[in-house]
């Protein structure tokens, strides 16, 4: 079932949580709502579920106005950030809850319910916790039970609020991949909220980047990462170095070095240049005219790449990342002189 958000606005007192947002999620898609806290992503999810009411605009489920339908009749599976498992019920009763509260006419027999619950437990690979209580489970297990409980009522749409937000890094990674595989098997239209860009980029088919109640960009992970629509998206999707450039007579300068920026006009006064840490090349010797001279201030060799803190002559600091092989070849030490060349430029802005 597709979800369509049409010009939705929602305020809490004077605070505009969502400001005229429109968005379409196609059937079977896995979409991430990505943004910092307070960007309105959870509110949007709750409006779709019917847990909040929009001040303006509406939500369409498969083209049908959802405002007519109450939360309990919307047939959405909602997985809460803190799982919201029923603490006084066993895992089995938690999962069976949605099946048992159905009206008598359409309720399954307890035999059928048992079969269904076992099937779901198998799906989330937790068959053995059936008789346990939520507090006896680890965070990751609770998360999967919460998912199984939401799936029990066979929702047409799955909404997940920060599904991995309160788990430790290792479990988070595992569950992330698990969710991706799981979605590929079930193909249920899913929307999940996260503030973790890595998570959004890794799991989602499409990413919706939100900020201050509005959408900054919608695109595939590749699009939002490599072609950010604006400086916010760029900043939010990973570390980036910002350089303020002087523009004179249609040419941009970093310090005294000219930087070739396509599209610089005569009327441009200054430019902002954004370069990601891995887009630098570090050399011992200058390469052409555009190399920036810098001193190595700090080296962090732990990890896949080596992270360097550099300081330019003009006092700007640069964060650069190079491969372990490059690092070994350069034999870098602290306080060494190096020359930095931008390999590619992610994004730039002009001040007119």
């Amino acid at each position, binding site marked *: 079932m597709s979800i369509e958000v049409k010009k939705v606005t929602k305020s809490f007192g004077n605070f505009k949580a969502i400001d005229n947002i429109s968005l379409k999620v196609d059937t079977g898609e896995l979409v991430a709502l990505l943004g910092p806290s307070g960007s309105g992503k959870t509110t949007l999810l709750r409006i779709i*579920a019917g*847990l909040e009411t929009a001040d303006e605009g509406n939500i369409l489920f498969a083209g049908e106005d959802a405002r007519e339908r109450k*939360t*309990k*009749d*919307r047939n*959405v*599976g*909602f997985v*809460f950030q*803190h799982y*919201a*498992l*029923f*603490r*006084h019920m066993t895992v089995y009763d938690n999962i069976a*809850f*949605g099946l048992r*509260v*159905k009206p008598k006419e359409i309720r399954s027999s307890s035999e059928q319910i048992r079969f269904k619950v076992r099937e779901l437990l198998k799906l989330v690979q937790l068959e053995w916790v059936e008789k346990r*209580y*939520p*507090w006896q489970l*680890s*965070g990751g297990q*609770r998360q999967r039970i919460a998912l199984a*409980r*939401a799936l*029990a*009522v066979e929702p047409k749409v799955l909404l997940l609020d920060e599904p991995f937000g*309160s*788990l*430790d890094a290792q479990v988070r990674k595992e569950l992330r991949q698990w969710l991706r595989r799981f979605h590929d098997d079930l193909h249920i239209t899913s929307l999940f909220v996260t503030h973790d860009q890595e998570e959004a980029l890794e799991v989602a088919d499409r990413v919706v980047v939100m900020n201050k109640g509005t959408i900054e960009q919608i695109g595939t992970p590749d699009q939002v990462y490599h072609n950010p629509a604006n400086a916010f998206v760029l900043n939010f999707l990973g570390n980036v170095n910002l350089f303020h450039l002087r523009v004179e007579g249609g040419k941009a300068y970093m310090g005294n070095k000219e930087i070739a920026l396509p599209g610089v006009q005569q009327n441009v006064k200054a430019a902002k240049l954004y370069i990601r840490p891995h887009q630098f090349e570090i050399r011992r010797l200058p390469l052409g005219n555009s190399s920036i001279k810098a001193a190595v201030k700090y080296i962090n060799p732990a990890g896949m790449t080596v992270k360097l803190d550099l300081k330019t002559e003009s006092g700007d600091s640069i964060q650069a990342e190079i491969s372990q092989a490059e690092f070994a070849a350069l034999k870098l030490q602290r306080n060494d002189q190096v020359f930095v060349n931008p390999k590619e430029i992610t994004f730039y802005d002009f001040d007119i």
Partner: protein
Amino acid sequence: MAGGVPNLKVRSSHTLNRSSQLSTESAVVKWFLIGIALLYLGIFLILPLACVFANAFNKGIQAYVQAITDPDALAAIRLTLLTAVIAVPLNVIFGIAASWAIAKFDFRGKNILLTLIDLPLSVSPVISGLIYILIFGAQGALGPWLMEHGIKIVFAPPAIILATIFVTFPMVARELIPIMKAQGNDEEEAAITLGASGFKTFMLITLPNIKWGLLYGVILCNARAMGEFGAVSVVSGHIRGLTNTLPLHIEILYNEYRFTAAFAAASLLAFLAIITLIAKSIIESGIYQEMRLSGTDSGDKSV
């Protein structure tokens, strides 16, 4: 009080070499405090309780049984029970409704409602009783109308029940509000997204989650409803066999120098107090258990 002075000396001498003596000091302080608490308990609680029972039985079991099976005593017991049976359930309904509204929703005037709920606790019980005299009494606002229609409220059981309801008003709500606030809305919202109706959500999710707090409130409310003296005394009129509750009956017996009978009746209230305390401690361990469980829960949440 005399014990406080040497203890202060101990304290000051120990500050000189506190690193080595820290544990000694805390042991001294610990036993001193325990001593005070025990002394206090003994003088103000155990001794009076023992007195009540000693006096109640000092003329033998027969006198005791006679005292509490006296028709006036039985009538007082009946009225006390009737009052509790009406006041406690009403209190439960109001308590759940009010705490639900306060803990789960935001609305204008929420603080006013909170303050109003606490009002009966901050007002003298005598005033609580007088309110009803002023409303329903012969000189009161509704008095003449009621008299015309032959409805008797003041100096009759209805006023006693009303005054008791007023006095016990905050008992359940005050227990439930913090519990409901701490639990939040998550589980209810989860139940609704799973297709449960509002009523089913309340019965299957909310009620089980607050059951210990609710029981605790009921126990306290019941104890207060049966033991209330001030407010009830004002509105009762002390008509023997008709408008006397157990506490009022005790007072009358005492004023007539019928000590054995007075203490026998008092022993019933003392029994009630002891049962309440036992029930309370059982329920408290239940609440503790619950909090421990949800504590583990929230502990993991913040990871």
